């Protein structure tokens, strides 16, 4: 069964209406797909549901207090709108959530709009800064959401430090709408850097590159991005692979930081420097996995492993006919290749061999339905997943099967 197309989606403009829709579906036992603007429709298993709710019409920033480093927005607010409002005050979203529309948009056509903040939180997607400053989930201070019974639940608040009660903010981050439909999120924000610089080492092999990235990340110079592109040509011109280290700082601190880091990395290779103007589009491309450029019919996967295992995972995937690149100092492996069972199994094996995890970001629907899109849980944990799912959504109506078959 294909994923639902947008016209069938109910997109209420108030939380109360959304709650009433879910309550009615709960009463009737009708499964619902849960969407924002569907820019990540292919991220996960196909959902078998007769209806769908979307938070995309719940829009608008509801609170922004720059001096308190906090912003709240309704879940359907485009990430870009929030970034724009923050930029006006010289601030930004810490986790730099990627725009993956080009990678995991719906198979059946166009997404309904730009990535929403609710979707970014519900999928816990973070960009290169993840390695230094935390994931999307680390910035979530508060949430409002509708659980599978149509009840409006809240957790956290609008303050930076809060340990009151169980942390549902983190539990709902990354749960992809299967526990509750996010209606509003409150995030920690930070001052945006005055300047960005990149050191580029060309021509290193993957293992050597990860060593260089580790040296940079283990230095006191504040590396906030650490990626390796096996083929740097498309983004940086000829010269083979590209090993990238990013510094984000006050402009007058950049020369010292880049000098010190270059000196530290001298034994790994000669480092070229990119200024802010060249660095920003480069890291946006890394963030959005642009180097993968998957063609129609190809699949895309992400693996998270211990950084020192990244190069090996990339090599194993290469042998299986997949191409990819590394972010997060080697710990995040992006891969693309034929959307086949063989590719999927190669990803599963590589993640398993590295004691890490994988996410199927896109693959043909039947493949996503047939094979796990994230690692299977051990029985005791799978039992907990079922019980926790039931604690939010006793009839299993929210995004059934989205992450795990039968859940």
């Amino acid at each position: 069964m294909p994923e639902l197309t947008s016209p069938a989606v109910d997109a209420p403009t108030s939380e109360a209406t959304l709650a009433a829709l879910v309550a009615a579906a709960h009463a009737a036992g009708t499964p619902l797909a849960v969407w924002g603007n569907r820019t990540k429709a292919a991220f996960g298993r196909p959902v078998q549901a007769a209806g769908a709710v979307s938070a995309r019409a719940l829009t608008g920033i509801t609170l922004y207090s720059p001096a308190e480093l906090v912003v709240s927005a309704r879940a359907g607010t485009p990430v870009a709108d929030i970034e724009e409002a923050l930029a006006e005050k010289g601030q930004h979203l810490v986790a730099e959530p990627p725009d993956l529309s080009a990678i995991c948009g719906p198979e059946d056509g166009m997404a309904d709009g730009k990535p929403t903040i609710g979707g970014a939180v519900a999928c816990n997607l973070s960009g290169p800064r993840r390695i230094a400053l935390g994931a999307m989930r680390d910035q979530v201070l508060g949430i409002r959401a509708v659980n599978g019974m149509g009840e409006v639940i809240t957790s956290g608040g609008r303050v930076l430090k809060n340990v009151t009660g169980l942390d549902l903010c983190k539990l709902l981050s990354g749960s992809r709408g299967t526990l509750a439909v996010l209606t509003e999120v409150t995030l920690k924000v930070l001052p945006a850097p005055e300047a960005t610089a990149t050191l580029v080492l060309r021509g290193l092999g993957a293992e050597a590159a990860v060593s260089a990235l580790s040296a940079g990340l283990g230095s006191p110079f504040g590396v906030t991005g650490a990626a390796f592109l096996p083929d740097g040509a498309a983004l940086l011109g000829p010269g083979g692979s590209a090993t990238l280290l990013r510094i984000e700082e006050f402009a007058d601190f950049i020369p010292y930081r880049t000098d010190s880091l270059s000196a530290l990395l001298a034994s790994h290779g000669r480092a070229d420097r990119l200024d802010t103007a060249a660095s920003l589009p480069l890291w946006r491309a890394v963030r959005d996995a642009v180097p993968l450029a998957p063609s129609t019919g190809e699949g895309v996967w992400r693996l998270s492993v211990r950084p020192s295992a990244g190069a090996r995972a990339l090599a194993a995937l290469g042998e299986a006919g997949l191409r990819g690149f590394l972010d997060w100092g080697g710990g995040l492996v992006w891969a693309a290749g034929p959307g086949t069972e063989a590719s999927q199994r190669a990803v599963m094996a590589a993640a398993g061999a590295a004691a890490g995890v994988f996410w199927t970001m896109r693959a043909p629907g039947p493949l996503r339905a047939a094979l796990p899109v994230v690692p299977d849980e051990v029985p005791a944990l799978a039992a907990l997943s079922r019980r926790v799912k039931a604690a939010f959504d006793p009839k299993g109506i929210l995004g059934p099967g989205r992450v795990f078959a039968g859940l």
Partner: protein
Amino acid sequence: MLAMPEPKAEILARREEIVAALVARLGAGNVIAEPLRLKPYETDGFTAYRRVPLAVVLPETTAQVAAALKYCHENGIRVVPRAAGTSLSGGALPLEDAVVIGVARMNAILEVDYADRLARVQAGVTNIAITRAVEGDGFFYAPDPSSQLACMIAGNVAMNSGGAHCLKYGVTANNLLGVTMVTVEGDILTLGGDHLDAAGFDWLGLITGSEGQLGIVTEVTVRILRAAEGARAMLVGFGATDVAGQAVADIIASGIIPVALEFMDRPCIHACEAFAHAGYPLDAEALLIIEVEGSTEEQDALLARLQAICARHAPSTMRVAATAEESLAIWKGRKGAFGAVGRISPDYLCMDGTIPPGRLPEAMRGIGALSEQYGLQVANVFHAGDGNLHPLIMYDANDPASFDRAEALGADILRLCVALGGCLTGEHGVGIEKRDLMSAQFGPVDLDQQKRIKTAFDPGWILNPHKVFPLVDA
């Protein structure tokens, strides 16, 4: 005094049988049952409440924790997980019919990896021991609660503890990769691992800060960070709290995130100065300690910018440390704040609400009014950047009426924090101390949702019962 649950008579009656069963599973050397040896476990950092437990077990392995927990679960025996017992909210307070499972003997550092910037440790390792193990190589474990010499990583995970530097480095939850956790059924689970982010549900995020309600953590993998090249502090005194609050807002708005931004009010300044002789200005109504990191030149540049910002607010004092030693002197008073207040008043309650930093002036006025109303002195220390307030309420433990007033005053302060848009606890946890105030922050739907999650992990509610959730619900 907070109400405590009645011990279950049928469990008390089975004491000998229970102790024998625990000895059979863990060995006599790992089980404590003699009254004299149980006494040290009767309380934690929230010393006003004491309950001698039925028995204490100190397992040496995860398998032993699993055996003890499974037995207790199957026999309906309450369990109180314990690490170092420094909780300030009564999180580790035992019950007469409960078995305390303590992780203090599981104190090995299992792995340190600088290339991957992680350390895997047993749950009974102290917070400081992690930093000590890696500081020779320039690394550190970032969350640094003031209790770090004593408190253990298991307690930090259970409370999601913070520290003076969490404005920049985050709290415990932001610095973890994985835990090994034993469920009440005795299943040993790995949640998270050596990698970043969860593929399914974020179990690690849920477990962190769950106050021993969901399982017992036996191993923790933390992220370790390379320390900055150096750090230096400055001290600024202001004639009014509001002005100090405005200076804090201007600092954050300027784009500088100091590693620490601490606030002290007049009573606290006086207590600390009398204790530590740190050279704090006694004429100031509010004192800020601001710390920055980086190379020496970067520190100079940041401190100069901060001086310029503070100067706009007509500070009564401004002192910038020129050396690491001068920084230590500035911190000396703040680090000894609890001890200093302890000298003026042997007994005090340390509160832990959070407010939006912009509401600081209202919070200070409100706390001042409440302090007068209850006739008890309050000194305030405050992590100003993140809004975490620590009002220290001084009382006399020999006078039960004074303690009751202190508790009531504390509850009113926390209600004030919630009313100002904040929360009951920023880092010390709910424990028993704040459990009955939970309904001030959460509606019944929210509490029921949390309780259903608790039930999913612990169907018999044997784990750390009568904490976190209001007693009526337990």
